[in-house]
C-alpha cells in the first residue's frame, strides 16, 4: 500500500509523516492544532505535472512547516523543466530545496532532489556531493542510489558507478535500477545486455506515462544501434501511442526514419518537435538532416539557432561543454571546440568528454592528439557509432590506416551514425 499512499492521493500521507518528522526532530509539539481548512487532495499519478504543481503549491502555502511538501513541489518543478525545456523551473525548484535544507541540512529527500537538480544542470560534482550526503543521511533508502550512480557515471568513475549500481539493483530491482544497468552496459559496449536490462525496465513499468514512454525511447535507441530498425520503429511508435507527442520518442522515430534514408519524413517529424520543445539536441539533428537532404538554407538557419541556444544555455549556468564542443567541431570553430572540450574534460572526465575533446582536436588539425583522446573515449568498449567514427577519422588523418579501417567500417555499419559523420567516414 506504500505506493498508493506515497504518491497519488497521498501527499497528504507524506504530510502526516511530515508532522511525525517535525516531532522526531524537535522533540516537542509541532503544529498546534489541525487547521480547519482542509488540504487539497493530490491528483493520481496519471495527472499532469501542472496539476501536481498547482495542488502542491496550495499545500505548501497551507502547511509551510511541512518540508516534505516543499521537496515534492521542488521535484514537480524540476519535472516540469525537463518536460517543457524551461530552465526557470529549475531555479524555482532550487530555491525551494535551499529553504528545505536550511531547516534540515540532512534531509535525505531534499538532498536527493538537489542532487538530481545539479545533474540536470550538468553540475556533476555538486550532484555527487549531495548524492553522497543523501546516502549518509538515509542509509536505509533506495532513492539516493539513483543520483549517486548518475553522478559517478557522468564523472567517468565507471567502476565505482558499477559497484553502486550493483548495490542498487541488489536492493531493489525496479525501473530505476534496470534502466541504469542498461546505460552502464551500453557505455561498456554490451548492446545486447543493455537491451535486455531496458526490457526488464519496461516490464517493471514506471509510475508515470512519461517515464514509461522514456523507457520506450531508450529501447528504440538501443535497437537502432543494434541495427534492428523495425524493432526500433515499433518501440518508438508504441511509446508515441501511449504518450502522443512524447519528445524523446519522436526524436527516436526520426532517427529511425533518417537511418532508412527517409530524410523528408525525419525532417518533418523533428520540425514538429522543435516547435514544441526546441532542445539543442533536436535542433542540431534537424539541421543536420536538412543539410544531408540538400536543404542548405534551412540547415544554416537551424544550426545557427542551435548555436545561439548553446550560448544561452551556457549563460544560464547550464554546463553543456561536451555537447557544445562536438557541435562547434562539426559546425563552428574547431579552435573554440578544443577550448570547450578541455573545459568539459576538466569538469567531467567521462568517455563523452574524452570523445568531444578528441574530435575537436582532430577537426582542429591535430589528429594524433585527437586519436589519443579517442582511445580514452573507447577505453570501456563503447560501440557508440560517433565515438567509432571520430576515432577512425583521427587514425586515418594521423596516418594510421590499419587502425582506421576497422573503426571506420564499424561506424559505417551502424545505422545510428549521423549524416555529418556518414560524410566524414565515407570520404
Amino acid at each position, binding site marked *: *500500500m506504500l505506493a498508493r499512499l506515497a504518491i497519488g492521493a497521498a501527499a497528504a500521507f507524506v504530510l502526516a509523516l511530515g508532522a*511525525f518528522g517535525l516531532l522526531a526532530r524537535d522533540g516537542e509539539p509541532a503544529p498546534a492544532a489541525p487547521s480547519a481548512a482542509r488540504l487539497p487532495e493530490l491528483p493520481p499519478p496519471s495527472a499532469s505535472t501542472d496539476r501536481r504543481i498547482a495542488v502542491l503549491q496550495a499545500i505548501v502555502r497551507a502547511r509551510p512547516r511541512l518540508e516534505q511538501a516543499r521537496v515534492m513541489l521542488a521535484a514537480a518543478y524540476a519535472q516540469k523543466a525537463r518536460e517543457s525545456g524551461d530552465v526557470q523551473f529549475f531555479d524555482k525548484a532550487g530555491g525551494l530545496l535551499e529553504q528545505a535544507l536550511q531547516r534540515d541540512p540532512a534531509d535525505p529527500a531534499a538532498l536527493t532532489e538537489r542532487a538530481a537538480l545539479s545533474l540536470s544542470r550538468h553540475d556533476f560534482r555538486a550532484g555527487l556531493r549531495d548524492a553522497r550526503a543523501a546516502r549518509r543521511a538515509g542509509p536505509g533508502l533506495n532513492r539516493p542510489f539513483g543520483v549517486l550512480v548518475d553522478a559517478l557515471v557522468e564523472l567517468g568513475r565507471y567502476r565505482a558507478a558499477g559497484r553502486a549500481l550493483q548495490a542498487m539493483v541488489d536492493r531493489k530491482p525496479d525501473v530505476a535500477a534496470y534502466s541504469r544497468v542498461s546505460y552502464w552496459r551500453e557505455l561498456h559496449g554490451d548492446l545486447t545486455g543493455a537491451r535486455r536490462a531496458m526490457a526488464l525496465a519496461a516490464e517493471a513499468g514506471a509510475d508515470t506515462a512519461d517515464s514509461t514512454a522514456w523507457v520506450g525511447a531508450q529501447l528504440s535507441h538501443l535497437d537502432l544501434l543494434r541495427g534492428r530498425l523495425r524493432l526500433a520503429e515499433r518501440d518508438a511508435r508504441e511509446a508515441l501511442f501511449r504518450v502522443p507527442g512524447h519528445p524523446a520518442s519522436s526524436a527516436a522515430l526520426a532517427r529511425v526514419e533518417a537511418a532508412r534514408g527517409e530524410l523528408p519524413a525525419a525532417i518533418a517529424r523533428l520540425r514538429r518537435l522543435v516547435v514544441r520543445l526546441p532542445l539543442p539536441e533536436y535542433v542540431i539533428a534537424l539541421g543536420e538532416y536538412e543539410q544531408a537532404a540538400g536543404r542548405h538554407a534551412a540547415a544554416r538557419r537551424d544550426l545557427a539557432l542551435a548555436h545561439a541556444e548553446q550560448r544561452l544555455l551556457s549563460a544560464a549556468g547550464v554546463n553543456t561543454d561536451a555537447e557544445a564542443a562536438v557541435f562547434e567541431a562539426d559546425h563552428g570553430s574547431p579552435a573554440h571546440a578544443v577550448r570547450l572540450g578541455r573545459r568539459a574534460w576538466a569538469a567531467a572526465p567521462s568517455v563523452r568528454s574524452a570523445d568531444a575533446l578528441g574530435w575537436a582536436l582532430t577537426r582542429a588539425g591535430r589528429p594524433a592528439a585527437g586519436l589519443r583522446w579517442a582511445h580514452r573515449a573507447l577505453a570501456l568498449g563503447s560501440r557508440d557509432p560517433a565515438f567509432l567514427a571520430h576515432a577512425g577519422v583521427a587514425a586515418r588523418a594521423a596516418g594510421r590506416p590499419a587502425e582506421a579501417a576497422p573503426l571506420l567500417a564499424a561506424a559505417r555499419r551502424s545505422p545510428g551514425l549521423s549524416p555529418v559523420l556518414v560524410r566524414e567516414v565515407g570520404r
Partner: protein
Amino acid sequence: MRKLSVIAVPLAAALAAGAIAVSSGSGSSHREAPLSALDPTADDTDVYAFTAPDAPGDLTIVSNWIPFEDPAGGPNFYRFDDRARYYLNIDNTGDGVYDVRYRFQFKTTVRNPDSFLYALPGVTSIADPKLNIVQTYSVWRETYKNGKETGARRIAAGLPVAPDNVGPKTIPNYGAVAAQAVRALPSGGKVFAGQVDDPFFVDLGSAFDALNLRVGTGNAGGGKDDLAGYNVHTIVLQVPEARVTRDGKAVASASAQNAVVGVWSSTDRERLDVARTARHTKARAAQAREVQVSRLGNPLVNELVVPLGKKDFYNRTQPSGDLKHFGKYVLEPELAKVLNILFPGLNVPETDRTDIVQALLTGIPGLTQIAPGAPPTDTLKINLGTVPNPNPNRYGVIGGDTAGFPNGRRLADDVTDSSLRVVGGFLKGNKLPLGDGVDQNDVPFRATFPYVAPPHAGFDSQIKRAEPQHAPVGPDPSQP
C-alpha cells in the same frame, strides 16, 4: 533582421526567454533515467484473509497490486509484471517464516504485433481474438520446513487474467467475460486474477493529513473516499484449510492447535549482474536469483508505524525479523504522540504499547495466536475455526465481532477506524470515537467468489465519493 520562418519564431521566443533546458533524451547528452520511488507493478496495496460464508472450509485471500488505476486512463492499460513473482505467503508455525507459498507468474501475449490497441470493439469472451493484449498465468504451490523448501509443484498453468474494463463498446458484457477468469484449481479451491474495483476505502486526507478529521473526531460519516472509482489488480485465492494448516488437516474448531495461520503478500524481481561478464564469487553465486521488493501483512503497518527512513528496508525484510527491526516503533508509535498533540485531552498512551503488539503482531491469545509464545511478526493472522458472522460489524474484534479484523480481514472491515481506535488505546480501556468518516466501499462487494467488486469502466467512472453524515458512532462501536 533576417526573416524567420514559422518554426524559427517560437524558437526565437524561447531563446529570448533564455528558457531552454538541457536535453533529457537519448544521444550524447546526460541521461535522465527515472528516479521514481514508486513501483506500481510490485507494490502490494492490501491483503485480505477471511473465511467466506459460502466456502466455510476454505481460506480465502485477496491480495492487490497496482494502486490508482484510472479507469479513464486512455490508451494506457494496466497489467502484472511478467518478470516479477507474486507470492501469497502462509506461516502456520508462528515464527514469521513462510511454510506454504503460492507463487503467481504472468505472461503477456500481443496477438497482433502491428497493433498497440488493447482490444477491438465487441469482445464477447475471454478467448476472443479481438482482445489484442492478453495475460495468462501459472500458479505454483511451494512448501517449506524451517525456511527450507520441501516441495514445489505447479498446480495450474495458462489461466486467463480478466481483462481491463476499458469500456462498454469494447467489452459490452464485461461481467460475463471477466467471470470466465474464475478458475477451479485441480487440487481444490479457486483462483482469479485481474482488474477489480479497489476494495479499500479511506479518507486519505482525513486519516493522513495529520489526522485532520472532517467532522469532529470523524465518527459521524462525512468523509470522502479517496479510492472510490479507482481499480487495482487482484489475485484472489481460495484453498481448502488443509492446504495451509500446520498438520495438513482441516480445522476442527477455533481452539484447535492448527486453527491460526499468518498471511502476507510479497513481490520478487529478478536480480541482475551489472556487468554480464562479471566473475562470480562463491558468495555471489549462492545468492538467490530473486530479490524481494515489497511485502504487506497488516494494513497500515508500513504506512503508520515504520518510520520514513526504514520503509524501503521493511520491504526487503521478512516478518521473522520484525521484532528486531521494527519492534520499538510499535511499542512507542509516533501516531499516538501525534494524536495527543492534535487532540489534547485524549490521553492516548504513548509508551509500552504491548496491546498493539498483541493485536497485530503476536496475536490475541485464544483467537489469533498461531502458537504459544509466538514472536511479533507483521502477518495478517486468521483463525480458520472462527465461524463467519452473518451480521458483520465493520469494527471487527473491537466491535465485538470476533470474525473480523484483526482476526483476518474481511473486505468490508473498516481498518482505518479500528486501527485509529486501537492506537487511541481502545484495548487499554481508552475508548475514543476516532475515525476517518468513511465507513464503507463505494460499490457493494459480491457475495460469491471472487467477492471483490467488478472494475469501474473507463466510460462512466466516478472518482471519489462522499460518505453521508450520520449519528456519531460510539466510543464502543459494539454499542453504537
